[in-house]
Structure formats: C-alpha cells, structure tokens
C-alpha cells in the first residue's frame, strides 16, 4: 500500500536535472507512504566489462576504504568508490559473483542493494523527504529514476521491506497493492534456488521477474506471464538499464497515471506527483489500461 513515482528522460539535455525534477515527485507521495522510501537512479554508467554495486551498512562511519583496498588487493582489479551517507557506490572491473563472494566471506554486515552498470538503489526507513535529503537526490544526474513510498501492510517497517527491490542486474521493481498468492509462489521460487530476505509480497514479485528473466524471457514476456502467475492487486513499475515498464493487474483498482511529452515519460500513483513537471499541461496524460504492459526504451 504505497505511492509510486518514476521519471524516464527522453531528452538527454535534461539529464543534469533528473534529481531536481524527480525529488518533488517522490515527496508528493508522502501521504501514500510515510513508513519508508527509496529510489533506483540510473546514470553514471560503468564500461561493459565493469560492474557497479550499491552497498549499505548500518554503521554510517563504516570504513569503506578498507573494502575497496581489500577488493583491489585480493581480486587484483581496479576499484573506484564513493560514500553517500550510509551507502558506498563501488565500481570495479571484477565480476559480480567474485565481488559478492568476497564480501560474504569477509564482511557479513554489508547489504548489496543493487548491481549493474548504471543502477544505484538508495532507500531507508523514514519520510520520503528525509530519505531524499539523506542521499542528496535533488543533485543527482541520470537518465531515469524509479521510486516508492511505503505504507507497510503485512511485513515489517525496515530497510529490507523498503522498495525498490532489486530484480537482477540493472533491474528493479516497485509495487503498490497487495498480492494474495505470494507465499506459495515464494516457496516455489525458493525451490528453484532463489532466496528472499523478507516476507514482503513485493519482493516475491521482484524474485518472480528475476527467475523469468534467468529462464530466458524478455521483460515484456516476464510481465505478461506475471498477469497469470501473480494474484491480487498491483501496480508495478519496473526499471531496466535503458528503459522502464508499467503494469497493472486485470482488475486495476490501484491508481496509476502516465504522462508523456517530447522530453520525458513520467508515471505516478497520483497526478499531483506530476503536476510540477515542465510542459505537463500540454503533454499526454492517461491511465494505463488493466493487464497491459507499457514499456519505454532509449
């Protein structure tokens, strides 16, 4: 039960303003989700043979420099990193699996929030305005951003239950609604080797997409089969490396508004999150139809 807001820039000249345009979108959804907030911002891409990870640790003064040095030394790879509040964004020429296993062996308190070339997932417990402020969202640059404000329904109010949920490399999902068959689905995905950090229904939806993509489906196909495999009420917004997608369940009670101009595509649970965007009054504004996958790429 939550608010969603996403912004996908078509006009590259706006990229320096992504965070400034997006921050009011996220904070406009505060009423729908006062418990926690988060966003996945896409930009600052690393080369194809590199990987970018967003790492989080409960200790705000965590010595990330030791992690960077250790990785560089043990894996013999170049590492670049910077700190942003309680997270570190780490870029390296090593493979994802090698980095993950190195981290698990040496630093169990580190949470991997996202992995990919462009994605950075930043989230936390608190009001959306506080989370945006903590990570300096308004100053961020990039091509697109997908975010969420949460009113927790049946799982805990904590970092693990906050959205966006990472669904694989450069992929993330946010959800407004309530699934009704996620426990059985979680069991069956666990038998297929996936692991889950929470009892959150949205994490199961994210895991489902991860599994379908690993099976070889493309995003469109994965979302289409989600329509039969996921029961309940949902509006999903999914971020990919170079695009984003929106899907509502066939009953479509949970709200969603899409807007498109020559400069951007924007999506939110309510229009008020879009009201300040430049040129919105002249843009095309509509509600996504039930059971239909909407996707944009650049």
């Amino acid at each position: 039960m939550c608010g969603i807001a996403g912004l996908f820039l078509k006009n590259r000249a706006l990229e320096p303003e992504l965070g400034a345009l997006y921050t009011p979108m996220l904070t406009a959804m505060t009423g729908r989700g006062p418990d926690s907030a988060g966003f996945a911002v896409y930009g600052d891409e690393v080369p194809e043979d590199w990987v970018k990870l967003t790492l989080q640790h409960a200790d705000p003064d965590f010595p990330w420099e030791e992690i960077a040095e250790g990785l560089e030394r043990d894996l013999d790879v170049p590492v670049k990193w910077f700190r942003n509040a309680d997270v570190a964004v780490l870029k390296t020429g090593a493979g994802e699996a090698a980095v993950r296993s190195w981290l698990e062996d040496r630093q169990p308190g580190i949470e991997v929030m996202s992995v990919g070339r462009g994605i950075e997932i930043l989230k936390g417990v608190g009001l959306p305005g506080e989370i945006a402020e903590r990570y300096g969202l308004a100053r961020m640059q990039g091509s697109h951003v997908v975010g969420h404000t949460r009113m927790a329904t049946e799982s805990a109010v904590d970092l693990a239950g906050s959205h966006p949920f990472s669904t694989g490399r450069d992929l993330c999902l946010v959800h407004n609604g309530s699934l009704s068959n996620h426990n059985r689905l979680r069991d069956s995905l666990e038998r297929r080797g996936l692991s889950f950090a929470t009892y959150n229904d949205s994490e199961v939806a994210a895991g489902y997409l991860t599994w379908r993509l690993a099976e070889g489906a493309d995003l469109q196909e994965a979302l289409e089969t989600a329509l039969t495999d996921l029961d309940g009420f949902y509006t999903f917004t999914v971020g990919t490396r170079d695009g984003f997608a929106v899907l509502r369940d066939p009953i479509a009670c949970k709200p969603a508004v899409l807007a498109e101009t020559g400069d951007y595509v924007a999506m939110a649970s309510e229009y008020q999150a879009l009201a300040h965007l430049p040129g919105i009054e002249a843009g095309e504004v509509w509600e996504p139809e039930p059971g239909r996958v909407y996707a944009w790429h650049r």
Partner: protein
Amino acid sequence: MSEQHKRPGMRESASFDRDVIAEIQRAADTGIYDIRGFGAKRAVPHFDDLLFLGASMSRYPLEGYRERCATDVTLGTRYASQPLELDIPVTIAGMSFGSLSAQAKEALGRGASVVGTSTTTGDGGMTAEERGQSDKLVYQYLPSRYGMNPDDLRKADAIEVVLGQGAKPGGGGMLMGQKISDRVAEMRTLPKGVDQRSACRHPDWTGPDDLAIKIEELREITGGEKPIYIKIGATRTYYDVKLAVKAGADVVVLDGMQGGTAATQEVFIEHVGIPLLSALPQAVQALQELDMHRKVQLVVSGGIRSGADVAKAMALGADAVSIGTAALIALGCNHPRWEAEYRTLGTAAGFYDDYHEGRDPAGISTQDPALARRLDPEAGGRRLANYLRVLTMEAQTLARACGKSHLRNLEPQDLVALNVEAAAMARVPLAGTGWVPGVGA
C-alpha cells in the same frame, strides 16, 4: 445414554452426521448456499474462558453503592473537533433499516438515548425515526452507499467507514427480495423485490493509501467536526489496526467472528474470521506499538452478552464495546411468547435465525407492516435501556471488586484464563500459574 446406544447396530458418522447429511440434501435440492442471520453458532474460545481476580488482601475492593465507579468514555479524541461523549461504554452496532423494521430502529434509538450511548445506522441509509430518537447517531459509510447523502452525513455525530464485519470479513451484504419493501427500495434506489447484492469493496477506493484520501474528503465535507471510525472484521487484525491508524482513523471498531449479521452465507459465518478474544490483544498491541492506545479509541464487538463480557473486553484494552444481536434479543427477538409462530416457521424460540426471510414473529427483522407493528418502539426502548443498565452495573460490580473507580482502569493483569487456548489468545496467564502460552519461556 445416547440415542445410538438405544438402537444397537446404528452408528452415526462423526464426519457425516445428520446435520451434514441434511445440508448436502438441502444444497442438492435448491442449488443455493444456506443463507441465514445471527452469528457463529460453533463454540469458540470466548470471554467465558476468562476469570477476574477479585480483591482480597493484596488489593482493596470498592463498596457497591457508595463508592463511585465511573463509566464514561469519549470517542474520537485524535482529530475530531467534536468527539462523541458517552455515559456508558456500551454502544449499539450498525444494523440497517431494511434488515430491521423502522420500529426496531426507533426502539434502539430510544433505549440507547435514555442511558446516554450511541446507535449506528446500517447498510441502507439514515431514517428520520432513528435520527429523531437517537441523541448520538453514528452514520455508516459502506461499499453500497445506499441512501448515502451529504445532508445525513452532516446530521450524524460520527462517521463509521465500514470495511468489514466479523460475521463475513471479505464479503458484501445481502438483503433478500422479501424485505425490499417500497420504502426500503426507495431509500436504496432499488427495484422493489430484487435480491440486493451489496459490494464487498468500496466503489472509489481500495487499500489504506486510498482510504487516507477518502477520509480526507469526509473530513473536508464535514469540516473536521465528526470522529471518523473505521470498522474491520477480525482477521489479520494486527496489520489492519495499524493501517487504520495510518489511514487517519479516530476510532477503530473491531468485530469478532461471533458478530451477528442480517443475512449471509452460513459458510461465511462459521468459517471466516477469528474470535474476538484472539483479535482484541492483537489490536491493542498494534495501537501500543504506534503509541496510539487510548488516543485512537478501540471499540470491540462480536458476541458481547453480559457485563462480564464488557468488563473483560475493557480489561484487555478496549475503550468501549458494541452490541447487535444482544440488543435485538433485548427488544424481543426469539422471545418464547412467539413460540407457536416459530413452530409454524419450522423453528423454535431461541433458534430463529432466518432474518433474511423477513417473517420474524417478533416484528424486528421484518418489513411486513403487520409483523413490524408488534414491536412497540417505546416498550422496546425501555427493554433495551434496562438491559444496557444491567450490562453497565454488572461491569461496574466486577470493576469495583478489582478496586477500580473507573471501568477503563481494568487491566489484563486482573484476568486469568481457564484453559490453554484462552490463555494463549487473550495473552493472560493460565489460572493459578504465571504461564502465558507463547510469551517468554
């Protein structure tokens, strides 16, 4: 000695007993699920499984007549500029004009007003009779919105947004054609005599995030004066209460599975929802975790029958209780004076539950003018007022025995449980032990 012992060789199946067989035969004959009124008839852990620890040496009791034990409660102190002040913590639950006769609604209003408590409309709008006779009237805001209009909304003393009922959480209302009289049809904008099917979800919001906006609208329309209640059927109570608070409730109304209904599927009544005893501590825990216990008031219903039930519900953390079925019985429902007529309907006094058929001999759950005339609203009101006074005096008796000068000072520590099930659900120790199942070691 049981019947089967008298008839050697005949053994009744425990799985397919005579009731089960009769129901299968009935389903095959009619092709429709069994519909009835009243609440759950199966035995479930209840307040009867709890006992008070009266004062003796370590605690001091209060004298019955001389020493005061106050009963007042204020509902809606969180946001409303005009909270509802009640003299007793026993209110009348929502029951519609349509399911009940106009006379019955009037009698409820008269009885409640005499003792300084509130009544509640139902799924059918507000009648002039009940507004006129109820000093304090709670207006239900339901998925069907039958008879919903802003004038009545402004006339109400509080607004109760109904998400569900203990008898049928997740289900909508029913009113059968026999009861859709001209007046009921007009109030609900329905063709006369149709089987009305009420929706199970509200038409213009779904979920707590959208409910928060709906509550904002209701407050805007009524200038923020009136308390907004949110009524839920007991199921995933811990989460639902938290969400009701987040959505902006002034008061949470929690209805357990024993709660009555005018009409729904028997399978719903007996198989959906949880007993009030198990839901109430969850609700209190949710409120406490949000630091909202006593700030957002908790009203509970579903099987409240006596002052002992009232006192036990309050000891577990409720601010007030609500009664429905018990109030109808006080008016005369299932009274032995109609025994001969119950027999002609194939039932007996004490068993009548076919409220949906509208042939209630006591004239309460009917729209038949001749039957409805049998209930004198003034006499019915007096009976209800008597009963409400007894409930209050009984609760005070128990509270005084525990040394309380106000009913709200009853605590869970004043209670013990008679059996493990009740101890686990109510989160109080098994009598004579310090053991609360599921808590601590």
